[in-house]
């Protein structure tokens, strides 16, 4: 065990810091990142392209496919700096989800076709797993794919598909045979969103925004070369991916950044002539969260270190997901508490400045959307079941 930064690490930290400070458009981010509109898409893609050009877009990938080859410490430093400056993480669907599945289970042709465009953010991916009847019990999914000659014919309905409205491609779990054990008979298919028969319907969430969708498939032809691995074995690939997804949802750096903003706002918000940050009760609320986050930072580091040795993360990723989302939600709850009356105002055409708090609206949106963090990526109840079974062995 050795947890000290070397001189090289410190030099790396300076390099990351300088790059972020010089290249990230903080003003633009402030305007659009909360917005989830087309402007959001173009801003985040532009940023990801900068990371790509720098060679830093895929720290988690093996070097041969475009990864950075960083040490665990370097990855930790990169995330710390990202959190410190409040820079958003890359959109996960391509880089953290389907990318690893393709380089792990895909064939050469698929790697050549898809990986470069994921790295360069030229393709936007979305995740087509959940269905109306298959949420926590994902394996009961019904969307069917029948092989006819060189194509699968796909029929069915996916739901809660994040950013399907922006997507060029969707990776789907589909049923290719009706086996007794429902986990068998599922396949992993990559589907071009421009295929005839694919349609997307928006779902507005309680934050008032549009990030979710229904995706409908009506006799959609998907060439057989878009099947990952073997037919009927998709569940195995999906499970590997879910573990990645969960570890990613810990979002430690983002919680760090949100906590930093919260402290700044609490210092600026005055009550009875004194900043809220000076209120001992609010301080206790803050430190309840911050101490948890400090522990989680090192839990994540330990997980990264064991991944560096053993490859795939195991069921511990469920632990990161639960703690990470609970902390994230706790921060958003405090932010909403801080903005008090103003948090409820939908400013509409009003200049947000007229409401006194320019961070109130973000606090409301983060809180509302943040309720989903304990639902998506496998709900926190289901993660607890996983830990009970896989880790505790009960």
């Amino acid at each position: 065990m050795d947890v000290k930064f070397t001189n090289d690490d410190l030099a790396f930290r300076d390099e990351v810091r300088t790059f972020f400070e010089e290249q990230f458009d903080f003003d633009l981010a402030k305007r659009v990142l909360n917005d989830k509109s087309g402007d959001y898409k173009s801003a985040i893609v532009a940023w990801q392209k900068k990371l790509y050009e720098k060679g830093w877009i895929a720290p988690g990938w093996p070097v041969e496919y475009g990864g950075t080859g960083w040490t665990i410490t370097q990855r930790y430093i990169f995330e710390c700096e990202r959190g410190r400056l409040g820079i958003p993480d890359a959109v996960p669907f391509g880089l953290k989800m389907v990318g690893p599945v393709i380089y792990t289970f895909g064939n050469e042709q698929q790697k050549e076709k898809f990986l470069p465009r994921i790295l360069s953010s030229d393709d936007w991916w979305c995740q087509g797993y959940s269905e109306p009847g298959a949420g926590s019990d994902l394996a009961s999914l019904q969307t069917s794919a029948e092989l006819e000659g060189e194509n699968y014919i796909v029929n069915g309905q996916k739901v809660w598909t994040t950013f399907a409205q922006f997507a060029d491609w969707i990776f789907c779990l589909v049923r290719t045979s009706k086996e007794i054990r429902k986990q068998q008979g599922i396949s992993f298919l990559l589907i071009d969103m421009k295929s005839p028969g694919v349609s997307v319907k928006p779902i507005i969430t309680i934050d008032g925004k549009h990030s979710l969708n229904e995706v409908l498939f009506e006799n959609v032809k998907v060439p057989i070369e878009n099947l990952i691995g073997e037919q009927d074995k998709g569940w195995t690939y999906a499970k590997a991916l879910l573990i990645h997804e969960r570890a990613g949802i810990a979002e430690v750096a983002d919680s760090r950044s949100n906590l930093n903003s919260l402290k700044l706002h609490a210092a600026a918000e005055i009550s009875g002539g004194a900043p809220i940050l000076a209120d001992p009760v609010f301080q206790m609320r803050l430190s309840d969260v911050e101490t948890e986050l400090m522990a989680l930072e090192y839990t994540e580091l330990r997980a990264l270190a064991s991944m560096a040795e053993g490859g795939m993360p195991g069921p511990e990723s469920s632990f990161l997901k639960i703690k990470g989302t609970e902390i994230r939600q706790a921060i958003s709850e405090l932010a909403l508490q801080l903005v008090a009356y103003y948090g409820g105002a939908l400013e509409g055409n009003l200049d947000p400045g007229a409401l006194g708090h320019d961070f109130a609206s973000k606090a409301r949106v983060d809180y509302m959307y943040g309720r989903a963090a304990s639902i998506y990526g496998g709900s926190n109840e289901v993660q607890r079941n996983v830990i009970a079974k896989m880790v505790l062995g009960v």
Partner: protein
Amino acid sequence: MNFKLSEEQTMLKESVTRFIRERYDFDQRKQIIKSEEGYSPDCWATFAELGWLSIPFAEEYGGFGGTIEDVAIVMEEMGKGMIVEPYVPTVLMFGQLLALSQNNELKSEYIPKIIDGSYLGAFAFLERQSRYEITDIRTKATVQDDNYIVNGEKAVVYGAGNANALIITVRTSGEQFDRDGVTLLLLESDCPGVETKPYQMMDGQMAANVSFNNVSVPQSNVLGSVDAGAELMEALVPLVILATSAEALGIMSVLNELTISYAKTRNQFGAPISSFQALQHRMVDNFMAVEQSRSMLYRGLCAYGEEEAETPIECLRSLHAMKVIISKSAKRVGEDAVQIHGGMGMTDELNIGHYLKRLISINTLFGDADFHQKKFNELSYKT
């Protein structure tokens, strides 16, 4: 002691329930929120016909002479329908400030207009910097002949956009944070120099920022005594907190009902999700939270207006404790309702998230749980 509703109270309760069933389902409410006024004048007229606008007013002004319990009964039911009409701003804030004041001329002029539904009011107490300190006031009024000249701005004033008249808090003497030196003035919304910028709140209700630029208000429009407006406010706040706590209770009980029935019909892993103990325990905790909230509301109702019988400190302790328990319960019940509904709970189309938003607004009104817990501590643990 008796916790049963009287026959009259049962009828009152049922009239609100029936109204919501027939005229105020979730889709009808959505249409109302989308309308230009942001509330339904039609529904308001019905409230007047059904006598709901008259409940807390004395008979000599045409009121029903009802009790705080009667108000709580109506509010609990209104909570279930998430009524967006300005009942709290008009009847309970504007109206009760009038009722609590000694200004008989203003009372006879305005209370009948509230009761017949022709007049809306609002209470502008919040300023950008004041948060939960209701006597932190910068808006100033200076005397000129028979008038006050008012300058300043109020923020997030529920109901102000549609109000015919406002009661505002102004500083007539002392410094920004002083309890003394606050005066309440009643003024018509269309007075020269009053500017209102309305917007919608997440709970579907309308609020506004209101600015005052050399607005002239006759001295005869003072409510309570000059410089002693804090007393009147301190009499009003418990009443509003009790009413909105009853509203929160109504919302929480609907959320629990909806969540339980959803969990019984939603199947995953070949069984209703209600069969999973992890969820059962949460639903039980939420059931207990609602029962504790109801007990606390009753305790608060008993304490209110009983300063003579009990010590004033005991009454206040009960009210602060009520706000603490009900805010905490509201947060957990609302958030768990979303959680147990899964993805469905996150949709704007379903009512669940909207109930959560109203609960959060209620929690904030006149101080959140931490604020009231601090007040409770101040009264309880003197060293």
